[in-house]
């Protein structure tokens, strides 16, 4: 077991340490904090690479995946002890390298971006906190540790999104992000607890009795909940809720577009590379659990099929909305949502390797696109509406070039760009999906839309007339270098997963790796279809916008002119926010008002009622006392007094009169006695 495993915890710890130190510093140490966070992340990158190296070679015994685990006790309750730990296996290593590498680039980029922001120190603190949390998720071998880092990531995203706190919209967006992810997290927590309840441990791999290992899975396989659904499936679905929340799948995606309020590096880091990837990583991590399905109909467990369906739907839905957006970052946000849909589709249909491959490629080119957008905004003096831009390719050549590479990678231009290979893998997996072919068609339609809205965006931003009032300027080199590096990476990353040389697949699943060009042939048909689709999307967008270029920023979008109703819906983000506003928020408000009213009036009312009753009782008592007793009693006493006065005269102070009385009474006594005796 390589010694690096024992120091694995250093990777998240270093940025955390950096974040702590920066927090303690005063605001004005901008450069110090920047260097601290970048330095710590650099070291983490080095460590990640060091951790990546031992996982490369094939396992001696062949079969299975190299996995090293280091567990430690956290606390005991009852007779058990809760144990946390971290794991090093190909999945972790790959992600570690990707996150640290992209993170580092983004950190460097943000030095430039935040140059003129006075509380940049705090920005770097939150960034390193975020990095630490993300790395925590990656290495954790316990679902609980994963959940804790998960929540910390949520916190970091809250802080980062709401970084420009003086903007109320930023603060609202941050809160919205946190709460929506929190909703997902509730599901995650319930799933986690249920799993803990069922398997007795939350450690993934604990040499034999971890929850993801065969013995636990077999046990789970047998259990079914009351509703007939398998326990494993139920738990997986709950975990998927968490993932959906974090990765912005359809019902819980509303927070992601609003998260654009934060500074661009934040969006890049969070919404491109890492945070959103956390959801996918979670599903990848607990894939064995997802796979367990007693019913096991049609070759794919219900959980995975749900993942696939949700992924597909999100992909198409988000792509549709992206078409109708005018804000440069919002388009990219929706594109991320749709790409995440693709990843879920890939995971659900094709398994861990397919999903992870698209995740890795997407991380690079989406980070590239976001940073590019960032430099565009930076250049256009904080202008975010694409309709006001235009023709920037001349003023910002490097940004234009790198952005073009990113766009082509994203829309899946064949052969050269990584996006094509990873999307191709997903489409291939979707096509062979036994359950149904609809996801495949949705995938294709999504690809078309992706190509369409990216070209639209390219046109609005870089081609067409110069609408921008001011003079746009190219971003400084500190920002453009990461762009260039990312552009190169966006291209190279594609080659380690091509059907011909599926290195990643082998690496992740521990299979043999051998170069066979024949695989290319097998998937040639699929590749042709996807290139056709991409070409279709790009050409139609290009023709549409070159012919009917909107005259002024306020002018209607050509699509809108064609289909005003549909475009309106897309533009307003399918009114989902309003829908949520109407239902969930209103319900919450209603509940709170009712409980408050209930509280104030019902319970308080009861108490007041009781006190009123007591007061009433008291007053009755007083009345009774006043009229019945007092009057009666006083009257009687008065009579007594009169009588007594009569007797008082008898006691006139004359001693002799008393003596007379005694004498008389003596006589009377004797008379009585005599009279008595005579009879």
């Amino acid at each position, binding site marked *: 077991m390589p010694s690096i495993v024992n120091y694995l915890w250093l990777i998240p710890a270093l940025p955390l340490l950096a974040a702590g130190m920066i927090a303690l510093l005063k605001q004005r140490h901008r450069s110090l904090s920047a260097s601290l966070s970048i330095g710590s992340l650099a070291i983490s990158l080095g460590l990640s690479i060091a951790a990546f190296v031992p996982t490369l070679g094939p396992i001696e015994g062949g079969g299975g995946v190299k996995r090293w685990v280091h567990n430690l006790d956290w606390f005991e309750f009852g007779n058990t002890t809760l144990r946390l730990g971290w794991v090093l296996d190909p999945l972790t290593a790959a992600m570690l390298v990707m996150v640290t590498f992209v993170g580092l680039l983004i950190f460097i980029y943000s030095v430039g971006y935040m140059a003129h922001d006075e509380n940049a120190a705090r920005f770097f603190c939150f960034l390193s906190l975020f990095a630490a949390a993300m790395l925590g998720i990656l290495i954790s071998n316990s679902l609980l540790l994963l959940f804790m880092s998960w929540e910390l990531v949520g916190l970091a995203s809250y802080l980062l999104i709401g970084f420009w706190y003086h903007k109320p919209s930023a603060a609202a967006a941050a809160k919205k992000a946190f709460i929506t992810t929190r909703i997902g997290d509730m599901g995650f927590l319930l799933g986690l607890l249920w799993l803990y309840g069922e398997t007795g441990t939350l450690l993934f791999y604990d040499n034999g009795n971890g929850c993801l290992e065969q013995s636990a899975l077999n046990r789970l396989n047998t259990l079914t909940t009351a509703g007939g659904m398998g326990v494993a499936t139920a738990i997986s679905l709950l975990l998927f809720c968490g993932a959906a929340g974090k990765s912005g799948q359809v019902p819980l995606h509303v927070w992601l577009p609003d998260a654009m309020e934060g500074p661009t590096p934040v969006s890049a880091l969070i919404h491109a590379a890492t945070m959103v990837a956390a959801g996918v990583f979670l599903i990848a991590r607990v894939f064995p659990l997802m796979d367990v399905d007693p019913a096991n109909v049609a070759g794919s467990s219900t959980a995975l099929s749900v993942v696939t369906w949700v992924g597909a739907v999100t992909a198409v839905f988000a792509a549709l909305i992206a078409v109708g957006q005018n804000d440069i970052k919002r388009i990219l946000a929706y594109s991320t949502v749709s790409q995440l849909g693709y990843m879920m589709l890939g995971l659900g249909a094709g398994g861990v390797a397919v999903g992870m491959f698209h995740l890795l490629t997407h991380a690079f080119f989406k980070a590239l696109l976001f940073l590019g957008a960032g430099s565009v905004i930076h250049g256009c003096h904080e202008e975010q509406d694409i309709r006001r831009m235009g023709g920037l390719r001349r003023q910002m050549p490097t940004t234009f070039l790198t952005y073009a590479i990113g766009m082509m990678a994203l829309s899946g231009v064949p052969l050269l760009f990584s996006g094509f290979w990873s999307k191709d893998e997903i489409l291939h997996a979707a096509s062979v999906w036994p359950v149904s072919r609809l996801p495949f068609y949705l995938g294709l339609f999504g690809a078309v839309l992706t190509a369409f809205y990216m070209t639209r965006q390219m046109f609005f931003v870089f081609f067409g007339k110069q609408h921008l009032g001011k003079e746009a300027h190219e971003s400084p080199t500190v920002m453009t270098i990461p762009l260039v590096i990312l552009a190169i990476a966006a291209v190279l990353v594609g080659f380690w997963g091509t059907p011909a040389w599926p290195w990643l697949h082998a690496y992740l699943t521990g299979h043999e790796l051998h170069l066979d060009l024949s695989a290319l042939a097998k998937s040639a048909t699929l590749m042709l279809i996807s290139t056709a689709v991409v070409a279709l999307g790009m050409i139609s967008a290009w023709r549409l916008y070159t012919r009917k270029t909107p005259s002024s920023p306020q002018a209607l979008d050509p699509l809108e002119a064609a289909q005003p109703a549909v475009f309106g819906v897309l533009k307003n983000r399918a009114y989902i926010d309003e829908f949520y506003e109407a239902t969930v928020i209103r319900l919450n408000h209603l509940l709170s008002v009712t409980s408050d009213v209930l509280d104030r009036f019902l319970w308080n009312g009861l108490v007041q009622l009781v006190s009123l009753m007591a007061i009433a009782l008291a007053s009755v008592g007083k009345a009774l006392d006043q009229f019945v007793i007092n009057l009666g009693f006083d009257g009687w006493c008065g009579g007594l007094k009169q009588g007594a006065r009569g007797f008082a005269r008898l006691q006139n102070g004359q001693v*002799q009169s008393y003596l*007379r009385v005694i*004498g*008389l009474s*003596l*006589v009377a006594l*004797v*008379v009585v*006695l*005599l009279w008595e005796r005579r009879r």
Partner: protein
Amino acid sequence: MRMLSDIPIAFLMIAAVTLVSAVCAMSLRNLVHCGLCLVLTFVGLAATYLHLSAEFVGFAQVLVYVGAVAILIVFTILLTRNAEVTLSPVSQSSLVGLGIAIAVCGSLVLPLVTSPSLRRLPAQSLAPDAQVQRIGEKLMAQYVIPLEALALVLTAAMIGAVVIAMRDDPERNDPSPSPQNQKDTGSVSNSPAGTALNSSSSTSSSQRP
């Protein structure tokens, strides 16, 4: 009808003397004379006791009443300047008093005379042995508690009498304290109680009336 000798001449004589002196004690104008008649009554009574062969009681009666009480009464008469007072006219209330007294006398004598039981008593019984020795034993044995109590009562009475009768504030030896300021100093003098033994009960000469 009755033998001369069995009529109790001695008793009748003594009784007559006592009763006459008692009546005088009650009716004489001059209080001192009343006092002296009272002394005579006491002596008469002592004689009756002797007649009833109770010497010890007789002598005690003489010693206590004639020796002490009579002196007390006489001194009180002197101290309260009544020596010269003349008899006030017989008022209506005093007649009522007399009537009641007569009624009481009748109610006492009538049953005595008519009661059959008294007659049954043996006229002749030997004189009981009232030796001083036996009285002493009785006192010391059976009646020791009443004796002690009596001692206490006497001491208390002595002290009480001295305190009550003492002048209020000897320092202010104002010869004739007007009733006014007398009233406010309260009847019972509360001057520092002198030692109980400094004067016999109210007869010491320092007691200027």
